[in-house]
Every structure is written in C-alpha cells, then in structure tokens.
C-alpha cells in the first residue's frame, strides 16, 4: 500500500479554446504536506476539480491512491476531505446541520459520541456558532464550516483549495495547528495557496504551476538551492573586491564610521567564493538570510509581470 495519495501525470484540460491545464505534473507522497502554488488562473482549482472527479481530463492521468479520479470517484472520496476556496452552503440549513450532512455523506457508520465530541472541540477551536443559518454567515464563517466538516471525518488525504481566504490571522493560526496535527498523525495534505508564508510554514514539498504547467517542484530545501541568499556584512576594509565575484548581485555599500556596510545577494552555488573573499576584509558583523519562497515565486512570475509591463 505505498500508493501515492495523488499522482497526476501530463494532465491536459481545455475549456473551449482556453487551455486550463497543459501538461501538469503533481505528486503527493504518503504523509507529505504538498504545497500547490500558482497565481490566479494558473489552473489550481481546475486541477483539484479533476482530482475530485468533477471534471474529466482531456488527456493524461489523475490518480488518487492509485485509483482513477473520474471512474472511482465515490470510493476514493471516502478516503479524502476537500475544502473549497469559496464555500457555498445551503441557505436554510444551520452551520451545524451542514457539517453533519457533509459528515454523514462521508461515513455511514462511526462512533456517534466520539464524533460529537470532536465536532464540539473543532467548533470551539474555530470559534464557530453552529446554530446560525448559513445565509447569515460571512465568507470566513462559511469557510470554517467546510474546515470543520473536513477535519471531522479524519481521512487519509486532505485537499485544501486556498482554505484560509476570508479567515482572520488568528483563525489562520488555528488552521495551521490543525494541519500540523494531521501531518503528525501521518496524513497527506494537498494545500493550494497563493499565500507563501502559509506554504512555507506547513509544506514539505512545493509544486509551482503557471498557465496550467508545472514549472518547479521539489522539497523546499531543493528549491532554495536554486535561489540566492541575502547577505549583510560589516567590514573594515574596502569591499570593492567582492562586487566583481561572479554570482554576486545587487550590491549596495554604506560607508559608516570605521566600517562599511555591504548588502548583497549571492547565488547559493557561489557562497563559498564570497565567504573566502570576505575573510580578507576584516569582518565585524555578518547576517545571512535564506531565500524566502516569496523570492522564488517572484522569479517565476516576475518575468511574466515584466513582459506585461513592457507591453503597456
């Protein structure tokens, strides 16, 4: 049973003339929290709909636990829980009723008393009043209903599509806690998001897509390897020598009393050369910041933005 919870290979899907997915690859391994990043319209939601068997791919394979996402949808859905980015609920049902309805679709049996306890605990965590009719809920509260309904069923795989949109920072923290818990319990998670800090905090691996195609995927460490570290250093000697090292970018120097402050960014592969050069300059202080996902992200979308800027 070492089937990957999610295995997507070369997925294509078009709506009319619009190519939503164009050769997408995505894998979530057992026990892994996988981040799924991309700008709006990149195809994240379409990918998830294909995974849920709501939409049929034009070509390629979308498998959940080794089963076909379209053909075996109902059986596979017993093993997962999904939270959409924009939750719509039945207006005349209360939040509590919607949670129970969704849970009952999922599990026909199960320990009633235990379920009730867990529901009460989750409602308390998320500070949700279950007696209100869904039509009176704000977007954030509708989101909480779907989150509670997902965490309540205890599946092997969680699929979240921008789950924290509409939640305030406190509730985001509660969400993060709950994901940590299911991660510790060995569950797998697919987390689609464009909030980088969320992904950075939670995810083991990241897949970045753009225009329906996977442009980067790997563990956070692997991806960071591709990027630059920001270095800020205080030196007593003239730092001109550093600027000429290949792989050093964006150098700014600030001359102070007795020492010069140099800020620069370095390709990770060239870090050794920079450190060697620095030792000769009488270093008084040094900080190095690892690359954030933000920078990683900007690198992939930056070019597109630049193009747009040029065409304006």
């Amino acid at each position: 049973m070492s089937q990957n919870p999610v295995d997507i290979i070369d997925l294509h899907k078009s709506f009319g003339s619009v190519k939503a997915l164009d050769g997408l690859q995505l894998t979530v391994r057992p026990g892994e929290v996988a981040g799924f990043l991309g700008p709006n319209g990149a195809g994240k939601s379409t990918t998830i709909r294909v995974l849920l068997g709501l939409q049929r791919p034009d070509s390629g394979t979308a498998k959940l636990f080794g089963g076909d996402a379209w053909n075996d949808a109902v059986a596979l859905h017993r093993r997962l829980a999904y939270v959409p980015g924009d939750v719509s609920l039945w207006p005349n049902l209360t939040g509590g009723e919607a949670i129970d309805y969704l849970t009952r679709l999922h599990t026909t049996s199960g320990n009633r008393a235990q379920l009730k306890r867990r529901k009460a605990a989750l409602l308390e965590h998320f500070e949700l009043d279950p007696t209100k009719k869904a039509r009176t809920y704000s977007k954030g509260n509708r989101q909480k209903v779907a989150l509670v309904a997902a965490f309540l069923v205890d599946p092997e795989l969680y699929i979240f599509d921008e789950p924290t949109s509409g939640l305030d920072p406190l509730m985001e923290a509660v969400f993060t806690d709950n994901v940590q818990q299911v991660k510790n319990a060995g569950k797998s998670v697919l987390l689609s998001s464009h909030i980088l800090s969320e992904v950075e905090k939670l995810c083991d691996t990241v897949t970045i897509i753009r225009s329906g195609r996977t442009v980067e995927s790997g563990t956070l460490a692997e991806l960071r390897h591709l990027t630059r570290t920001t270095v800020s250093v205080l030196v007593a000697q003239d730092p001109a020598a550093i600027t000429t090292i290949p792989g050093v970018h964006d150098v700014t120097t600030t001359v102070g009393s007795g020492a010069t402050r140099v800020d620069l960014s370095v390709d990770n592969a060239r870090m050794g050369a920079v450190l060697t050069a620095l030792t000769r300059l009488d270093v008084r202080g040094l900080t190095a910041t690892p690359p954030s996902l933000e920078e990683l992200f900007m690198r992939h979308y930056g070019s597109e933005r630049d193009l747009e800027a040029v065409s304006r």
Partner: protein
Amino acid sequence: MSAPTLDVARRAPAGRTAPPQTSASAAALAGTGYLLRFMLRRNWVRLTVWTGALVLFCGYYVVAISAVYVTAADRQNRAAAMTNAGGTLLAGPGYGLENYTIGAMFTNEMALWLIALLATMNILQIARNTRAEEASGRSELVRALPVGRHAASVAAFLVVVIADVAFVVFGSALLIGPGQLAPADTFTLMTGVGLTALVFAGITTVTSQLTVHSRAASGLAFAVLAAAVLIRGIGDIQERHGSWLSWFSPIAWTQQTRAYVDVRLWPLAVSLVAIVVALAAGAALASRRDHGGALLQGRIGRADAAPSLAGPFALVFRQQRGTLLWWLVGCVAMFGPAGLFLGADSGSAIKDIAGQNSLTAEIFGSDPIAAFLAIMMLHNALAVAVFTTAAVLRVKPEEDEGRLGLSLSRALSRTSSLLAHLAVAGIGALVLLLLGGALPLWVGTLLSGSDTSLLVLLTSGGAFALGIGVLIAFTAVLYAWLPKATPLAWVLCGLVIVERFFGSVLDMPTVIKALSPFYWVGNYPKDPIDPVNLIGLGAATAVLLALAVTGFRRRDINAG
C-alpha cells in the same frame, strides 16, 4: 482615460446640485438614473421576451378567436359556458355575456391571465433587482458609491414601468390594428392590466423589505397574487358583475372597467392609489432597516442536524418542503371550494348549461359533472406542471453556486444526487395531484351532497402524474446534456398549458399538440383514458430518465 468606476461616481451623486435643504430626499434617490440604465442592460433580454410574448399572445388570441367564433350565435354559446362557477373563477365578472362581442370575450376571459402573467414578470423582476442583489452582496458595492438608499428600489420599479408601458402600447396597437377593437376601450383595458400588474410590483417592493431572501420576497408577493385571484373569483361567483368582495382584489380594478361593454375609467384610479400606497410603505419600511437586513428576523436553528438529514434526498426535501407546503395550501384552497360547487344545485345548473346549445353540449358531453371534474383536475395538473418544472430547475443553482460540487467531493454518486433531486420533484407532484387536487375536490363534492368516486379522481391524478413524469425527465435531460439551456424546460411547460387551454381554440397542429404529455392524458373522466397512452408516457419517462443519468455521469460539473 477615465476609469468606469470614476465615471459612475461622478455621474451618480446628487448631481442635479439641489439646494442643501432638499438634499436629504434628493440624496436618497441619487444615482437612480444610472442604476436604471444598468438594470435595463442586465435584463433587457428577459424583459423583451416576457413583454414580447404577452403582446403577441394578445394579438394572436383576438385574431384566432375572431376566426373561430365568427357569428354572434357562436359567441353566445361560448358566453353560456362562462356563466357557471368554474367559468367565472377562471375568467371574469361576466360583463357583456348578453352580447358577447370579441372585445367583451377578450376582457372577460383574458384580462385575468394577462394580469397574472404581467404581474408575475413584475414580481420576479423587482425581487431580482432589489432583494436578490442585496442578498448576494452585490448591491453593497453599489451602495458604497454615492447612490441613495431608495435608488435601487425606485430604479427597479421604473424598469417594470417601462416594460409594462411597452406592453400596453404595443399590445393595444395589435388589438386596435389587426384585432379591430375599439381604441378607447382597448386602451382603458390594457392600461388597467398594466396598472394592476404594477400594484403587484409595488407589493413586491414591500415584501422585499420583509425578508432576507429574494425567493421568500417573491413568494410572499405570489401569495398575495394567488389570494387576489381567489378573492376576485369568489366575489364574482357570489354575484354576477362582482360583489363587494371582488373589490378587495386588484384584479377587479381592471375587470371592472367594463371595457367594450360600458367602459368607465375610475376603477383605474384605485390601482394608482394602491401603487402609491405600496411604494410609500416600501420606502418607509426600507428607511427602518439596515442594508442586507430584513424586518422579519431569521430564527436560530439546531446545532446538530436531525438524524433524518442523511443523504441527498433528505437534503433536497429539506430545501423544498416549504415551497411544497405553500403549493399544497394553495391547491387545497383552490380545489376544495371548487368541489363545493358540484352540490345538487350547481350540478343541475351545469346540466342546464350543457343542454343550452350544441357547443356547450360538446364541451360538457353527456356527463357535465365528469366534464367539470376533468376541467378541475386539469387545472390542478397544470399548476403542478409549473411547480415541478421550478422544483427540478432548482438543481441548477445548486451546481452553479458550488454546493453540488461540495456534496460530490464526499462519497456521493452523481446518479443518486440527480435522482434525489428528481424524486423530490416527482413526489411533490404526486402530493399536489392527489392531496392538493383529487382529495379536496372529492371532499368538496361530498360536503355539497354530490356523489363522486374518489377512485375516478385518483385515477385522473395518477394519469397526470405520468405526464408530469415526462416533464421532469425532459427537464433533467436538458440539465444533463445542455446545462446552459436548462431554462428551455419552461418552453415545454408553456406548451402543455397553451395546448390544454387554447389548443383547439387556436387550431394548433396535432404534431405540436402531441409534444405535450397532457395531450395523451386527455379529458378523463369526461372521456375514457387509453391505457396505451399511459404506458407510452411511462416509457417516455423511463427513456428520458436513463438518458439524463447517462449524460449527467459524463459531463463536467460546474463547481462554482
């Protein structure tokens, strides 16, 4: 270079630069013109189809009726059929029955239906442009601009005024031109229809302040419309040309203009006053509430679902039970009293009418009571057809707004999800046919001392249920294969109504009549039912259902 939003902001404010002291009322209406243009642009297709269809219907009816009822004697036969309680309930107060001209016939028999249809358009439009916008949160964006508190309500009302005026003008033109009816009477009648329909627009403006949901707002307004139809009917049955009771119904305010008989204008003033009162009440209520709020507050509900709320059928039933209950109340209120008229006296009265002349003899046949029951059961079934089509179509927003996708992400198959929806519509139809139509009709006849077989009525209800089955399955096929074209289900529903009411009058080709499932049910208990037809309806339902399920399992779900 001006961005559109800035443009709005610049145009929308109390731009007519009123002096400061009058700015409060001017500010409440700021932006009305802009909103009016916006609503017209958003709704012009609907409005054109509605008013265009009604205008054409007016013209076609008069031309067709002139061709069918050529001589005065023909029309007097028709008049005789309109004197009984059933005729009065479904037509008018009976002005001009002594000399039943084309105009008198049009007024007596069509005014009610034109008002009902135009009022329906008005109710739906007002609810759509005010409460629905507010419920969805879209109007919050608009209200954040310099737009007045009453601007949306007033603009929505002006939209239906424009549509209704178009109906009055073009409808009158058709009636006066090709229809060759007297201009003054025509214009009075049509203006009356428009004004009465606007009364219901005004009532919807009030109900939109009361409830949070647009469906509830339009539902309340439709309840008032149904009450108006019923009150007018009972009042006119009490007394030819209407009793005091009739005057409580806005519909009477048009019918009592006595167009083409002895026309008078003043009843139109009652409608005008009612419109002003309704709008003033709506404005007063609107000033008292928060944006997005309502005067009837929602209650809190259960924290845990009842054990019965398990599975898709229970969910759909839960969503539709309120609507079903109201339809049931309406049907019982309509067909219980109708049964009462079949007592010993009315029964003989119907026999008298049937014996009057050859045409009524043909309508009522050898068994007038059976013919009356057939007509009543048909009306019930047509109402159920409307209910069912609307009930099935509610699956569409479930999908479009993402709730279906959320359910299907759990262990729920598409087949059971779709069938649950159709089953609720089908069971609702059965309830309305048997408990809303057959049973109250039977109890009514029993109370009035007539002896009608319950089995006969139940058989009729059952036969119509098979016809309804075809409607349900047809709508499901549209939904499964052509989701964007789902509203076309109303075309078949409309055909069913037109074929039964006007099929013979309008001389409809048999090919088209045969498309209506009710054509195959026939006029039971007046005429016997052909079991082969019923088997055919059942088979058609089964085939269409299978087709719908196949299609729904294949296509992409629109997940919101």
